[in-house]
C-alpha cells in the first residue's frame, strides 16, 4: 500500500471497505466457501487433529535448532550445484536479485505466487531496473493487471468479483470477455504461455525447504509453479528463514494439513519439489538455481514475543474465519500480510509502532487459533502486542487516561459504586423506552448503532440485601 493510503487512519480505511459493495459481495462469497470447504475436509479426516499437533511440535523443534537446519539446507543445495544467498533485510534480498538480473542480462522474469516477494516489493524494484516481471498465478496476474496488491495470502484477488475481472481483462487485454471464470482463465492462460517461453528468469517463493535433501517445495493449484521452475534458464526462490523443515517425513505431515486448511483439498493440484538445477544428463530444469534465505525481522523473534508466528504456513485459514477480515478484506490492513496472522507478521517486519491500531483490529474471538493448522495462539500474541503498545506509551493519551480511571474504579468497590450512582444520574437525559441512546463522548461510538442498557435502578449489590433476607 502506498504511503498516502497508509496515512489514512485505519478506522477510515475500514470504513471505506465496509462501504464497498463489490468488496462485500466478493468477500462474503469467498470466505464462506473457504470456511465450508475447510470444515468438511477436516470432518472427513480423523487423523487431522493429531497431525496438527505433530506439525506444531515439528515447527517448535525446528526453531530450537534453526541455525543447524539452515546450514544443512544450504550445504545440500550447494552440493546439488545451487547457490545460497543470505539476506539480513528485504533490501539485501532485493539487491541480490537485481544483481543477478544485471549480471545475467535478464529482461523478463515470470513469477509464481510468493508473499515473500510481495513483502520486499520486488515487482516495483524489477520494473525500475528495466526487468519486466510477469505474475503467472491467475489471482496475481489479475492484480498485476489492475496495479494492485494481494488482499489475501493465498487468494490475492479475493476482493474482486468475476464481473470486475471480466471488465479488467476486457480493458487491459483488448476484447469483450464475459464474466465466466472458465473463459477468463483461458484468456490468461493464452497470454501467459508465450511469457513462460520468453522469460530469462523464474522467481518463486517456497512453501517449505527440506534441510536433509535440499529440496525446495512449492504448493500450487495451477501448475504455473512447475513452469516457472523449469522453463527459464535461471530459477530464484525467495524464502523466509523460518520455512526450513528438517526431513521429508516432516514434509508429508505438513502437506497433509496445509491444503486442507487453505482450500479444503486433500493436496493441492500440484506439489513441486525442486532439487538443484539441471543435472548432467537431465533434459529439463534451469541452468542455475538460487535460494535466497531472508531474515527481514524474523530471527530476532526466535527469542521474541512473536516466536509462535514463525510457525505460520501461510495457509490463510485465519483470514477466512476472522470476523474483522471478513468485513474489511485485506487492503484495509495496509500492509503485505493481512488478517490476524498478518497483524503479527507486520509487527515482526515493521515493528510494534506499525500495529498500534491494527493490534486492536480483533475482537479476540479466537476463531483464528481454532483453525490454524499449527494452532498458533494469535489472540494471545495480539494481546501481548497491545501490552507492548501500552508499555511503550504509544497508545493515545486519552485512552491511557480512561483506562487509568477504569483501573482505579476496579481497585476500589467504593469508587465502583460511586461510578454506578453517577452513571444513574448522568444517563437520565438519554433514556428512551428504557434504553440509552445518543450518548455523548466515546459512549457515542456505541449508541450510534446500538442501544445500551441503562445502569439499573438497583444494582445487584443493592438487590442482594433483599435476597439475603428471604
Amino acid at each position: 500500500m502506498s504511503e498516502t493510503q497508509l496515512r489514512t487512519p485505519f478506522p477510515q480505511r475500514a470504513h471505506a471497505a465496509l462501504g464497498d459493495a463489490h468488496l462485500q459481495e466478493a468477500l462474503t462469497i469467498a470466505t464462506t466457501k473457504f470456511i465450508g470447504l475447510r470444515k468438511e475436509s477436516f470432518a472427513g479426516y480423523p487423523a487431522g487433529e493429531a497431525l496438527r499437533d505433530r506439525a506444531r511440535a515439528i515447527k517448535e523443534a525446528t526453531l530450537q535448532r534453526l541455525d543447524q537446519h539452515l546450514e544443512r539446507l544450504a550445504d545440500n543445495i550447494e552440493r546439488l550445484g545451487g547457490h545460497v544467498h543470505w539476506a539480513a533485510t528485504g533490501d539485501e534480498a532485493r539487491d541480490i536479485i537485481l544483481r543477478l538480473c544485471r549480471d545475467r542480462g535478464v529482461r523478463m522474469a515470470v513469477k509464481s505466487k510468493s508473499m515473500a516477494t510481495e513483502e520486499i516489493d520486488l515487482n516495483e524494484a524489477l520494473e525500475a531496473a528495466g526487468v519486466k516481471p510477469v505474475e503467472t498465478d491467475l489471482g496475481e496476474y489479475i492484480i498485476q493487471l489492475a496495479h494492485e496488491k494481494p488482499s489475501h495470502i493465498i487468494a490475492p484477488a479475493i476482493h474482486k468479483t468475476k464481473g470486475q475481472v471480466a471488465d479488467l481483462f476486457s480493458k487491459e487485454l483488448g476484447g469483450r470477455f464475459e464474466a465466466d471464470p472458465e473463459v477468463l482463465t483461458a484468456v490468461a492462460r493464452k497470454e501467459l504461455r508465450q511469457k513462460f517461453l520468453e522469460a530469462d528468469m523464474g522467481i518463486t517463493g517456497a512453501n517449505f525447504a527440506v534441510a536433509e535433501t535440499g529440496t525446495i517445495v512449492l504448493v500450487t493449484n495451477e501448475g504455473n509453479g512447475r513452469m516457472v521452475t523449469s522453463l527459464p534458464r535461471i530459477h530464484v526462490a525467495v524464502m523466509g528463514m523460518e520455512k526450513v523443515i528438517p526431513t521429508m517425513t516432516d514434509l508429508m505431515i505438513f502437506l497433509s494439513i496445509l491444503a486442507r486448511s487453505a482450500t479444503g483439498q486433500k493436496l493441492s493440484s500440484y506439489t513441486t519439489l525442486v532439487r538443484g538445477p539441471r543435472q548432467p544428463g537431465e533434459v529439463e530444469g534451469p541452468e542455475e538455481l538460487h535460494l535466497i534465505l531472508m531474515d527481514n525481522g524474523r530471527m530476532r523473534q526466535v527469542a521474541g514475543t512473536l516466536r509462535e508466528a514463525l510457525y505460520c504456513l501461510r495457509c490463510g485459514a485465519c483470514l477466512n474465519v476472522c470476523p474483522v477480515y471478513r468485513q474489511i478484506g485485506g487492503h484495509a490492513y495496509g500492509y503485505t500480510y493481512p488478517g490476524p496472522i498478518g497483524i503479527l507478521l507486520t509487527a515482526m517486519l515493521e515493528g510494534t509502532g506499525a500495529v498500534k491500531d491494527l493490534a486492536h483490529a480483533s475482537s479476540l474471538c479466537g476463531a483464528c487459533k481454532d483453525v490454524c493448522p499449527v494452532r498458533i495462539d494469535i489472540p494471545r500474541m495480539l494481546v501481548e502486542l497491545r501490552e507492548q503498545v501500552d508499555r511503550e506509551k504509544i497508545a493515545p493519551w486519552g485512552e491511557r487516561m480512561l483506562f487509568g480511571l477504569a483501573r482505579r474504579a476496579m481497585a476500589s468497590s467504593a469508587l465502583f459504586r460511586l461510578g454506578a450512582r453517577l452513571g444513574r444520574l448522568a444517563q437520565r437525559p438519554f433514556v428512551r423506552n428504557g434504553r440509552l441512546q445518543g450518548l455523548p463522548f466515546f459512549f457515542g461510538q456505541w449508541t450510534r448503532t446500538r442501544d445500551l442498557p441503562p445502569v439499573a435502578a438497583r444494582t445487584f449489590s443493592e438487590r442482594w440485601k433483599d435476597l439475603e433476607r428471604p
Partner: protein
Amino acid sequence: MKASIMITCLGEMFFPEVGVAMVKLLRRLGVTVDFPPGQTCCGMPLFNSGYHHDAALVAARTVKLFAQAEHVVVPSGSCAWMVKTEYPGLLKDDPALRTQAEALARKTHELSQFLVEVLGVTTVASPFQGRVTYHDSCHLLRGLGESRHPRTLLQAVPGCELVELPGSDECCGFGGSFSVRLPEVSTAVLDKKLANVESTDAKCLVACDAGCLMQMGGGLTRRGSRVRALHLAQVLEPGEIA
C-alpha cells in the same frame, strides 16, 4: 453445597436481574449462595487492552475476595475464562498469590458448567414457553470448550423449543473495547449475527455472556426487533424476565 456469586461488572450494573435469577435458581437446586462484598470487575477490559500491570492488581484483589469460597459461579463465560486461564499467569511473580489464583481458577465455574458438571443437573423445571435460539459466546465456546451444556439445559425445559442459530459459533462483534474502538466493524459483524437470528423465527436469543447480550440486545432493540436477548439463567428462572 455452597457457592459464591461472582456477579461481574456488567451483571452488577446493567443486568442485576440475571444475578437474581441465578441466585434463585441455585437456591432452588439446594445450593447455599453467598455474595462476597466488594466485587468490581475481573479486569478483563484492562487485560485485553494491554494494561497487564493494572489487570494484575485487579486480579490480586479478586483472588483475595474469593479466598474463602467453596465454588465460585459466574454468569459470564468470558469472565470465567479470565479467572481460569489468565489470573495465574498475571500473578506469576508472587508465588503465594499465584497459588491462590490457581486455587480460584479450579473452583471457578461458568453457570452452565457449574449446573451440569458440579451439581450434575441436566434438567431444570421452568415454566418458560417459546422458541429460542442459542449464541455460542467466543470465550465460553473456544476458551472453555463449552457448547453442549447450555443447549442440554435449554432442551430440557418442556416449553422451550431450541432451534440452531446459523453461524452460532461466529463472534457477535462485541470484543470489549473493540466495540467502541472500531464501532463500524463491530456493528457490521453484529448485523450478520442478527440477520441469522431473525432467520430462525425465535422469540428469544439466549447466551451465557453479559458482553454478547449487551451487544446483541442493544442491536435488537435498536432495530425494533421482537426478539429478546436473554441470559440462560432467565430461561431457567423466568420470574426475572423484566
